């Protein structure tokens, strides 16, 4: 529901604003923190044994040069019920992997990262996701009635609250697009989630979807706590306009048990995901 309000206000603001330009601004610089990108995503139809965790450090906002990989940490994940331990080993560039992970739906796991004498832990439960019923394309949906959009159609389970994360990336694009949603107003219904690219008329740098474009789609079932986290992250990465919420320091679930104030950025998430791609006709 939020999304409608945001989009409406965004449109309202856009229709009235006259000028946008990139300027140089001085910002504050906070001390660097550890960043834990522990996204254990179990792709439907696979065994889910291969998992990756990325560790890095945060940098000043406009910094483009610093190498941020964290290469000297020890990383493990434990199944909370049977204490099965999965050790992630460093592969270079701050990437830690395992080939032995055993994903279990609704099972809770604990992450432990030890870095420079400090221990970070996080706890999360693996959230399932329904199958995608159908993927279609259309032109008259979405905001722009002249541009193509892709539609993901699935049926929301009625029995519980569900939270979803969608990731769309056109092949050849630099950045993915993330969107989040829940079933608050649509519980138990067939849901159609559309995605289109807004053409940037000013710079011509971003193009709308064309026939032949291939878009990679990931459709995640996520926990409520992660939904809160990623929702704020997505909203804030869209930039703070006049009608957006005041940005807040975003805290994930990775806590520092040695020095609590020195918490880590990032999140330990456990999801089930449907991955597919769609070629525009």
């Amino acid at each position, binding site marked *: 529901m939020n999304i409608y309000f945001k989009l409406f206000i965004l449109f309202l603001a856009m229709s*009235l*604003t006259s000028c946008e330009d990139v*300027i140089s601004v001085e910002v504050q610089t906070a001390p660097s*923190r550890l960043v834990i990108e522990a996204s254990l995503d179990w792709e439907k139809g696979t065994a889910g044994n291969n998992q990756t965790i990325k560790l890095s450090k945060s940098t000043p906002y406009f910094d483009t040069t610093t190498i941020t990989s964290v290469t000297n940490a020890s990383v493990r994940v434990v199944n909370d019920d049977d204490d099965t331990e999965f050790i992630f080993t460093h592969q270079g560039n701050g990437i830690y992997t395992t080939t032995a992970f055993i994903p279990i739906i609704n099972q809770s796991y604990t992450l432990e990262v030890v870095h420079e004498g400090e221990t970070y832990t996080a706890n999360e439960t693996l959230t399932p996701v329904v199958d995608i019923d159908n993927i279609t394309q259309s032109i008259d949906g979405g*905001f722009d009635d002249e541009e193509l959009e892709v539609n993901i159609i699935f049926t929301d389970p009625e029995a519980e609250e569900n939270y979803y994360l969608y990731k769309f990336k056109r092949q050849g694009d630099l950045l993915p697009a993330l969107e989040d949603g829940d079933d608050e107003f*649509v519980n138990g*219904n067939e849901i159609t989630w559309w995605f289109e690219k807004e053409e940037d008329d000013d710079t011509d740098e971003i193009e709308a979807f064309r026939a032949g474009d291939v878009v990679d789609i990931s459709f995640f079932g996520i926990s409520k706590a992660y939904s809160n986290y990623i929702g704020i*992250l997505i909203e804030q990465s869209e930039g703070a306009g006049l*009608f957006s919420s005041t940005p807040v320091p975003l805290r994930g679930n990775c*806590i520092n048990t040695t020095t609590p104030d020195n918490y880590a950025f990032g999140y330990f998430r456990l999801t089930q995901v449907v991955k597919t791609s769609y070629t525009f006709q």
Partner: protein
Amino acid sequence: MKNLVLLCMLFTAVLSAQENYTISGIIKEAKNGETAFGASVFLKGTDIGSISNEYGFFSITAPKGTYTLIISYMGFENIKQDITLDQNQKVNFEMEEESTQLDEVVVVAEETERVSLKKPEMSVSKLNIRTVKQMPVVLGEVDVIKSLQMLPGVTKNGEGTGGFHVRGGAVDQNLVLLDEGIIYNTSHMLGFFSVFNADAIKDIKLYKGGIPARFGGRISSVLDVRQKDGNSKNLSFTGGVGLISSRLAVEGPMFKDKGSFLIAGRSSYVNLFLAAANDENRLGFYDLNLKTNYKLNDNNKLYLSGYFGRDTFKFGKSFKSSYGNASGNLRWNHLFNDRLFSNLSFIYSKYDYDLEITDDEFDWISSINNYNIKYDLKYYASDAFKLDFGMSGIYYDFDPGQVRPTSETSPINPLSLDRKKAFESGLYVNAEHKITDKLTLQYGLRYSGFSRLGGVAMKNYANNQPVVYNSTLGIYERGTEIGETTYKKGESIKDFGNIEPRMSLAYQLNEFSSIKAGYSRSAQYIHLLSNTTSVTPLDVWTTSGKYIKPQLSDQYALGYFRNFNNKKYSLEVEGYYKTTDNRIDYIDGSNLIGQNTIETEILNGEARAYGLELLVRKNEGMFTGWISYTLSKAEQRTLGGTAGGPGINNGNWYNSSFDRTHDFSVTGAYELNDKWTFGGNLVFQTGRPVTYPNGQYQYEGQSVASFSDRNSDRLPAYHRLDISATYKPNRKPNKRWKGEWVFGVYNAYNRKNAASISFTQNETLGINEATRTAIFGIVPSVTYNFKF
């Protein structure tokens, strides 16, 4: 309370037992019969005098004798009349416009705008509509709210945002009254235009502090806007044609000279252009003002007034929306005797919006309705003692939101948020007491009560904590629901009561200067929920109740006032300190839309503001205008309280988003000759506090910003210059049609003032960048105004 009133009456009855007589009456403008508010009436050679009220009524009581009565009202010829006070008498006066003045041009400030040294009233900004009309404006549309910002202590969150801020207060802390009806949204098109049509308005008064006891319900300010009564002498037309909108007002006598009427309408025509350009989008606004009055007899007069305004938007086939205010008011002026004036008002007002999402086939509606009855009395006991007293009751019916699918195939389930009903009452008494020739006191009390009414089920929470601090993750979360309590219709869920003392004093140092001091306490029971930088038309109001406490504010003010050069110049300096308890603040990531349990998203915080305001005016001559400067600070803090934890922003004080360290402006008008008048505004303001990133990290294949503490950065300073020129073509003195051209340039040196700065990762280059959004560059305009 009742006893107090009786006591005061008794006291004054004793005073008036001497041989005192009263002269009372109504003061009007001779040309159109419009009542004169703020005309000064006094007896020559004495200190005895009075100012006419909103309905033009005055009453003076003096010992038996012969006097010269003088009435002055700026822009009009003084009336001098010898009177013999040997009995109570009623005389009505009509003021002729000054013959030296050409037509309706007034290049001197109105008397009501000038410094009154004796009245304890302080922290008040008055603008006559004629002054407002002379100021340069964006797109040629006269705007009351923008004009107020040229006065000290009043700011706005930049262009393209609704509402205004007074002395570091929030938008919802302003009580905005149009002919006593509460206006919930003061702007059209997101703040580009105000809802007040200048052709229908008589005057504007903004109380920034020292709010008189007869007003209640908001803690920051009262903006009291009065509509014209309508010309009771001739049928006349006023109108204007601008680039964006046009307006027309008709006024004239009716009921065989026992009354008059005014109908004013205004509409934008952007839609015509959009349609012509084959654009699917639509945006526009219109409003309608109505007023009529009927004189039953010398002691009884009825007024009926109404306002209806609406904004409409449509974006392709995706969205349709409309929102607006409506209000209606029936008033009965009754004169019990020549010293006791009363007014009874029945007021209805409403704000609602409708957002239709065409793609997903549903409608979202929300509304506020309130029914208000007010009874105000003023007793002119003696020259030294005047008493205001009265009561009011407001019944609120809030509908925070309903989702209605518009078709069978809509994927959206219907939903209704709980309606919120409440009753607010007020009882007040206020005395204006001249202790000596030099010292005048104003002291009063308001008792306000509020009941949140039942007919609804309220959730209960474990440990009575709707919000809980999760100490492991260091975040605030919603509490654990443990069932709910159902309250019957008419049953009260929670009652509040507050005693609000209001007092001020004026001490005249000498003929030219005085000092004034004031203290006031006020309570506010309804709150606008908004966690965005600027309020939007879609924000909803909520009531105090089981979990939300009323806001309580204390304000102290001290001022120095001086006239120079025979009132040609005036100086006003005021300092203030204000604290507010129970200011709602929002937990990180709060979700306010479609939220039935608002209490799980907020914490109760506090706010404080202090500042120094300076206003220098030049009131007469070819060149008139003023310089205004405010140095101020506005902060807030929210501790964890019952939710535990350190609080929002770690429990530290942080800048409110309407904090402005410096706010400087110059406003001037220059009358070159009969044909040409020029106007100019210059504004400089410290940038708005905002939250910028203080770092970045890689997550999900993109750069994610981490942010610093709340509002610890600032936008670049805001400044701009506006100029205007008014041309009145040669016209014969007796010709009925009077036209004028107004040429204006807003933001003359094309400053790109940042409305916001947004930090994003460039989608093609992958680098982080800061994007400035500026709303208005240089905007020229031309308007033709007419009158006949």
